[in-house]
Every structure is written in structure tokens, then in C-alpha cells.
């Protein structure tokens, strides 16, 4: 395998006594879009800023393109960053904003501007070069911010919640744009969000963080289908957690047994609502039935406990109070504890 574009080696960042990042080991491959996902205050932004050089690690090393940059200030690294607030310079034109980076790094002015024009063209902003940022729409400002971050062909481009200032309806479009640009320029990207749907949609891989540590790393499908802990199972999507015992490879809980490989002892299984099938008649009972347009959602009182079940809209609908039996396939569960 080739050398990772970014590497965290036992990185710790402390503010006073509190650890914002409490020991992270992570490698991000070249050309990959890696997302940091987690609840508020778990250290996502801090990790991102450690890559940018806007914070320096208290312990451990950060490597970019194989080089230890732990003590290099932001200005000595080659990273592009898209800020939550865009951070466009209000006193400079769009063109000057984008040409700023190359000019700072010593590219002659004419050349820097030519390069900026080229990038602006590619992000679809041709013709707006002379405007001030305040004269652009929110989406356009966002694209300027991206153009400004990629104009210098950075080793990595960093996004800190880039969609939080974008109108809800535009989000999907902008997120697709970002993903397309990242692919087109073959950029290594690190993306911070606390929106799990957004994370699933844009990422090659996702890092789920919890209280300054990495809880799990994996592709969106791995995280969704094979969550490693109850925290991840319930943080990404909805999950039913079933507690029981494993004895000689068989999991038993009240009213159910499943083949689950692994160590004997107490266990927790996670099953997604859409993986559960319901058949009319049986020991379980539908408590509520909710019509959601694209699907039906049922809350079922089963022997193992209350289960959330989600069924396609075209299946025969069940009503609250109806008796049902609940089926779970062993291949659809993952053991989270």
C-alpha cells in the first residue's frame, strides 16, 4: 500500500485539563474523502484543525504526505480549508480571494490570477470574478470558498461543516457538487459533520468519534450494517438493541434464538428497523402504525421488548392493535457488545 496522505499517530490535544482529542491513530489514503462524524463536542473540529496546523498537538504526531508536521504552523503546511462561515475576505473581490493563496506563496500576480480564473471557471463561477463576496448568494459564496481552498493543489482539503450555512433544500445539491469536485481533482479530503445522513452520502470512509476518541472507522455500508458498538448503532440511523446471552454459538433472548458466532457470555445485538419482517398473527402486537409516505413505521411490542420496524409502503399495511409475528434473520444482525 502506498503511503497515507495523512496520518495521526497517538495524537492528543488538551486544553488545560480537558482533552478535546484523547489519543487518535488514523491513516487517510490519497484521494479519499474521509468524514469525521460524531456528537457535538466530540473533537471533530479540533482534529480537523490539527491537520490544518491551526492547533498543534499536545502529544503525538501528525503527518502529511509522510512528513511530520506536528510543529509546523498552518502557514508552513499545504492544506486548503473551507470554513463553516466561508471566511471570504469581504474587502477583496472574488478573484482576489481565490488568487490570494498563490500570490502569498510567491506566484507572480498575473499567473496567480490566471490560475484563479481557471478554477473559478471550473466551479461554475465564470463572470463573477469582479464581485465582492457580499454580492454573491450563499451557494455562490460556498463555491468561492471551495475554489479558494483547492486553487493551490493542496495535499488535503478540509471541510468544517460546509453545509451548515446552506439552505436545507440546497444541501443535497451542494454536497453532490463537493463530492464531484473532490473526485474530479482527485483530492484527499477530510470532512466534518454531525449529520449522519450527510456523512453516509459523501464519504468513502467515516470516522465516528466519541468523547475525543475514535469509536469506529469504516465505509458507510460497514458502519451502517456492522456497527461495532451500541453507540455507533444508534448514532447512525435507527437501531433496535436486543440484550441476551450467547451459549455455544447460539444467542438467546426472551422469545428468540439466533445463531451468532463469537464468544459465549452476555451479548447485545443490533438490528435495523427495515431488516425486520412482520407476518400477521402471532405472539407480538402492533402498538402504533405511522404512515410516513415512503414507508410505514410500526412500534411492535415483542417478547424481546419494544421493536421499531420499518416496512415498504407497497406491502400490505398493518393496523395498531393487530397481532403479528416478528422475524429476524441471523445474517441481518450485528453483535455490538
Amino acid at each position, binding site marked *: 500500500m502506498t503511503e497515507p496522505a495523512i496520518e495521526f499517530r497517538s495524537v492528543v490535544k488538551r486544553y488545560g485539563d480537558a482533552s478535546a482529542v484523547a489519543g487518535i491513530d488514523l491513516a487517510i489514503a490519497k484521494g479519499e474523502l474521509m468524514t469525521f462524524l460524531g456528537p457535538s463536542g466530540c473533537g471533530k473540529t479540533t482534529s480537523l484543525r490539527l491537520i490544518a496546523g491551526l492547533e498543534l498537538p499536545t502529544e503525538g504526531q501528525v503527518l502529511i504526505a509522510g512528513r511530520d508536521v506536528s*510543529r509546523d504552523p498552518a*502557514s508552513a503546511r499545504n492544506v486548503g480549508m473551507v*470554513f463553516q462561515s466561508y*471566511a471570504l*475576505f*469581504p474587502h477583496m473581490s472574488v478573484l482576489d480571494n481565490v488568487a*490570494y493563496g498563490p500570490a*502569498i506563496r510567491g506566484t507572480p500576480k498575473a499567473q496567480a490570477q490566471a490560475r484563479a480564473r481557471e478554477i473559478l471557471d471550473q466551479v461554475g463561477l465564470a463572470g463573477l470574478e469582479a464581485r465582492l463576496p457580499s454580492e454573491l448568494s450563499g451557494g455562490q459564496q460556498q463555491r468561492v470558498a471551495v475554489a479558494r*481552498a483547492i486553487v493551490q493543489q493542496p495535499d488535503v482539503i478540509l471541510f468544517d461543516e460546509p453545509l451548515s450555512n*446552506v439552505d436545507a433544500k440546497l444541501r443535497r445539491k451542494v454536497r453532490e457538487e463537493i463530492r464531484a469536485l473532490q473526485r474530479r481533482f482527485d483530492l484527499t479530503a477530510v470532512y466534518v459533520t454531525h449529520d449522519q445522513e450527510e456523512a453516509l452520502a459523501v464519504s468513502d470512509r467515516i470516522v465516528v468519534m466519541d468523547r475525543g476518541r475514535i469509536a469506529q472507522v469504516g465505509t458507510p455500508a460497514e458502519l451502517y450494517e456492522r456497527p461495532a458498538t451500541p453507540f455507533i448503532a444508534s448514532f447512525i440511523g435507527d437501531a433496535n438493541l436486543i440484550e441476551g446471552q450467547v451459549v455455544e454459538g447460539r444467542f438467546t433472548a426472551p422469545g428468540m434464538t439466533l445463531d451468532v458466532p463469537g464468544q459465549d457470555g452476555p451479548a447485545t445485538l443490533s438490528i435495523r428497523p427495515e431488516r425486520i419482517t412482520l407476518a400477521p398473527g402471532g405472539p407480538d402486537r402492533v402498538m402504533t402504525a405511522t404512515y410516513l409516505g415512503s414507508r410505514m413505521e410500526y412500534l411492535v411490542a415483542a417478547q424481546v421488548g419494544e421493536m421499531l420496524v420499518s416496512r415498504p409502503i407497497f406491502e400490505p399495511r398493518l393496523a395498531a392493535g393487530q397481532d403479528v409475528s416478528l422475524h429476524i434473520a441471523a445474517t441481518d444482525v450485528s453483535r455490538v457488545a
Partner: protein
Amino acid sequence: MKAFEGRIGLIWSGLLLASVLALPWFKGGAIGASALAEGVAGRAWLLPLVAVAVALTALTFLTRNWRVHQAAAALVGAGLAWLILQGFGIGLRGPALPGIELLFPAAAAGQPGFGWGAWLAGVALIGALAEVLAARGFCRGERFAAFSIVGIVAALTLFVFFPILKLMSAAFIAPDGTLSALPFLARITAADLWSVGCLTGAGRCGVVINSVVLGVLSAAFATALGLALALLVARTDFRMKRALRAISILPIITPPFVVGVAIIVLFGRTGVVTVEVAEWFGVRPSRWVYGLPGILMAQVLAFAPVTFLVILSALEAINPTLEEASTTLGARPVTTFRTVTWPLLRPALAAAFLLAFIESLADFGNAIVLGGSYDVLSTKIFFAVVGAQYDLGQAATLSVLLLALTVAAFWVQTRWLGRASYVTVTGKSDAGLVAPMPLLIKWAAVAAVLPFVIFTAGVYMIVLIGGFVTDIARLEMSPTFGHIWTAFSFEVGDRGLQLFGSAWDSMITTLWVSALSAPLTMGIGILTAWLIARQDFAGKRAFEFGTLLSFAIPGTVVGVSYIAAFNVPPIDMTGTLWILVICFVFRNLPVGMRAGIAALAQIDRSMEEASQTMGAGGGRVLADVVLPLIRPAIFTALVYSFVTAMTAVSAVIFLVSARHNMATAYIMGRVENGEYALAIAYSTVLMLVMVVCVALMNLAVGRRKLGRRTAVTGTAQPAQ
């Protein structure tokens, strides 16, 4: 990038090498008299510094990254420590600290003060220290920020704390030069400080009592007047609002003594008003105005605009809906005022009072002109240094007292009031009408303000015409340019422009000092603001407090402390232009700093971070992003420091010399000689010069040009 780092290292070690090998080490030294030469010639204690310079240079060449090398830290630390120790340890006539000859056996030879070489060596070592710290993660590795912090801390230590420490130690020096607590105790308990004779009718009061009485009275009157003014401006449809706001700027640009002189011209024994009143009522003209009444008048006139602004901003910040609520609950205007407005205003009133109290204690100009036999601390300090009996110990003791008083008031102001502020700033537009003022209060305010307005008009009338009539004091009113000509006569002959007027020297020095100190004050002030607002570093709180502290030190105390500190090696610079410049820079620093901090709080920090991630170092970030966005603060800082440099007197009066005299000191001389017309004429010219210079600065700094829809946050509204 790596090569660049190497080069920065070379700059500091190169500078260090040059300063020990080539530049004159001592003040006034010859070109060849470097540290090396002096060291070889007998002042052996300089040689280790040469060794440090050579070793550090070698290190920058021999190691790949000298900044992280252990030896670099050790060398820089040792170099700085040695520089300071030998500088302060060995005076002009040998050892200056007890026991120092153990460390420097040859110290008896003595040494003059720091010259170019020593100063630059200090700068180079500080630069290298910043590099070493930055390489270890200080300031997130940003060398510019690291250098700024280390540099400013060093400068504050040298020019604010060191003089104060020196002053305190001077308070313990007996007349024969020995150090002991007895003279301090004797001086500080003296009857002429604490006597309350004037109250009991048994003679005069002590200076401290005088000062405090004056301070309390002056602050009380100024606060009451400020409140009246603020109420009229904020809560009535009073016609003259704009004029009142304009008046509030006057004291800032009015040179000291002018108001005092105008008061003498009006109310002195032969004053216009006095004579008229005497004729009408048949009383004997007296010198009643000299003393407490005169100083009080002048101070209230000077401080009322300040208290006015403080109270006005509080009054305007009160959410009208609160008062409205009270009114809709059925309260009469007087009740609303008493139960809602007044309690909300109280913190502002206290703040205004303390501010005026501090200013009154620090005031020197009015007290010296109008004081007569009413001694206050600031004048007493002045006469202890300048008078016939040059007694630095006495001056220092009094200074320590004055300092304790003002710092205590300052402390109360920041601590106690900081918590008690109820002012509600919500950022919402406050719909709702302000409560109508109770009539009684309205007329009381008018009654208070009217004399003030008439009085101000009278005073400035005198200032306006006094310089251009034969003798305003005797009401000889024939127009003349004679006074101006005495001060500023010139001739353009075959030998070019020749300046004869007696005031030219002081005018030119003043312009130089102002022109040098204003940009420096602004630059350091804004830089400090940026460091405080944007950098996290150990000791930031202390740093901030230190910068603000210099604001609480009265000018007289600064003057005495500078004499105590900078009259002797290693930093002997009394009598130079630089001591004047430095004095102003560090006195006015907090103003630029506050303006900068306020402006920076409006600016989204991620713009600077964006600039950094694109490759800009701290200096570029400042120049490209920060400064263009905080132009108004820059302008404020520039104008304020320029204007104060032209009008301040309390500190400079101690620091001027025959060669470098300042306008205010010159004017004071004229006032002492009774040449009132000349003093007024000069003051008029000074005010004119200030107005012109401020207009020029406005052109140079310019207005902020930003898009119409801008908030300076870098965030724009989400797409609609």
C-alpha cells in the same frame, strides 16, 4: 520553507554578531568601541556575550534546524540573562548591586549606559528567543506572534514595570543615598500629608486630604453635570443636542492651562467678571478663585464631557420597553424614573464618578495654574523634583501614594463595577418610546446645564480672542497679531527660511514627538489587541492586565518614575527625544488596544485562519486581512495618540529638556510668567495644527470600503 527558516535564524544571529563586534556598545561610544574591543580593554564581563553571539552563529550554520536544538535555548537564555545582569549590575562608577563584584571581579571599572550595540543585541536575543519558543509550539508555532509577544512583554517590563519598581525603591532612599525604610515611614506619616486642620479650623489640610477632597467634589459635580447633559440629550427633544455632543470633544483637543488661564482672566483678582461684580455689588476683588474653587471649576469643565459620554451610552442602552412596561403598569413618570431608569443607571454613574475621580487625582495642569496655596499630590510631586530642593525620595514617596490611590480606584472600577452592570444589549431593535422625563427632573437638568454652557462658551470665547488682542487680562481689546508673531516670527531671506519666534523649537519638537509616537502607539496598540484577542499563550491574563495598568498610572507618577529609572545607566536617556516618544507610546497604548480589541471582536476569526492555511504568516495575516477590516480603530488610535502627544503635560513636564522642549511645557512657562496672551495664542495655534493633522490622517487612513451588504463577519446570509 526550510531554507527560509534558516535565513530567519541568520538574521538574528547576524544581528547579534554585528552588535557585539561592530557597533559601539556603550552610549555615545565610538564606532570601533564594540563589546569585543571594550571587553579586551578591561571590561571583561562583556566577553561572554561575544562568545554567545559566536556560538549561536555557529549553531545556525552547523545544525539543520537550530531552533529546536537544546543548545540554542541554553545559549539564548544565558545571553539574555547575562546582558541584563551585567547591564543593571555594573553602573557608571562600578558595582550597582550589592555582591555583584563576586560575579564580575573587574566591575570596579564601571561602564556607561547601553548604546546601539547593546540595544540591538537585546533585540537580536529576543528575536532568537521567540524563534526558539515558536519551534517548541508557543503561539501554535507562529514566529510573528511569538516575536510580538516576547517583544511587547520585554518593552512593557522595561518601560512600565521597571520604572515603577525603581520609583518604589527610590521612595526608600534616604537623603544620603542609603536604602532604608525609615525615611519612607517618616515621609509617609508626615503631617503635611494627612493633617485635617482645615476641617477643624486649625490651619491647613494635608496634601492627601486636599487631593481626595478635590477628587470627590470634582467627580461628584462632573457626574451630576454629565447626568444632566445625558438626560437632556437622550430623553428630551432639546434643541442643542448636536452642540452638546460637539462640546464633549473640546476638552480632548484643548491644551492644558488654557482653561485655567481663561478662568483667571474671568475670575482672577483683576478678572473681567470679578471687576464687574465688584463694581456692581461693592465687594473688594479678591483672589478667591485660586485654590479649591478654581481647580474645581476647571476640572468639572474638563471631566463633565467624559462622564456625559459614559452616562449617555448607558442611557441609550437601556431598553425602552422596560420603562414602557412600568408606564403601562400605571406608574407616573417620576415613579418610573425612580424605580426603573435610576437603578439601571447607577452602575454607569458609579463608573463615571470613579473615572472623574481618577482623572482629578492625576490632573496636574489645572492644579498648578489655579492651585495657589492649595497643594495637591501632583503639584507637590512636581515641586519636589523641579523645585529648589531636588528630593527624588520625597517625590517618589508621594508618587507611590498617588499611585496607590488611583490604582485602588481603578481596581474598584474594573472589579466591582464589572459585575454590577445591568445594561441590556440585545442587538434587537428596540421598538418602543422612551419614557417622558418628569418635568421636575427636566428643569433641574436644564438649570445645571445652562451655567455650564454659558461658562464653556465664555472660556472658549476667551481662548478664541485672547491670542489676538493686546491684553485680554486687562481687557485691552485692540486686535493684534503681536503675540503670534512673538511666538512664531520667521524670515525668508538670502539664507533661506529662518525661524526666530520663541516657540518654534518647542513646536517642532512637539510635532516630531507626536508624529513619531502616534504611529508607534497605534502599531503596538493594535498588535497588542490582536495578540490578546487572537492568540492563546501562557500568562495572557497578566499580559492584558499589565497593558491596562499603564493607563491607571497618573502622568506625574510616570514622569517621576522615568526620571528615577532612566537617569542612570544602563538606560540613560533622560534629556533625549526618545524618552518623550517612549513615554507617550506606553501611556497611550491602552487606548489603541481597546479600540483594536473592540474592532476585532466584530471580525470572524476564521478569516485570519483562512489566510494562514493559504500560507500567510502572522505578519501577512495582519496586513492583508486584519488591518483593512479595522481601519476605524486604527484611525481612532492614531488620532488619540497624536492629540494626546500634543496636549499632555503631566508626564512630559518632568522629561523635557532645554534641547527638547515641548509645547505644553513652554506654555506652562509662559503662564507662570503671567504672559497669558502669549500662552493663549500658542494654544490656539496648537489646536489649529491638531485639526489640520487629524484631517490629514483621515485622508491617509481613509474610510473602510466594503460592499454595501456587508457584515464584517465573512459569513454571508444563507441563500434565500
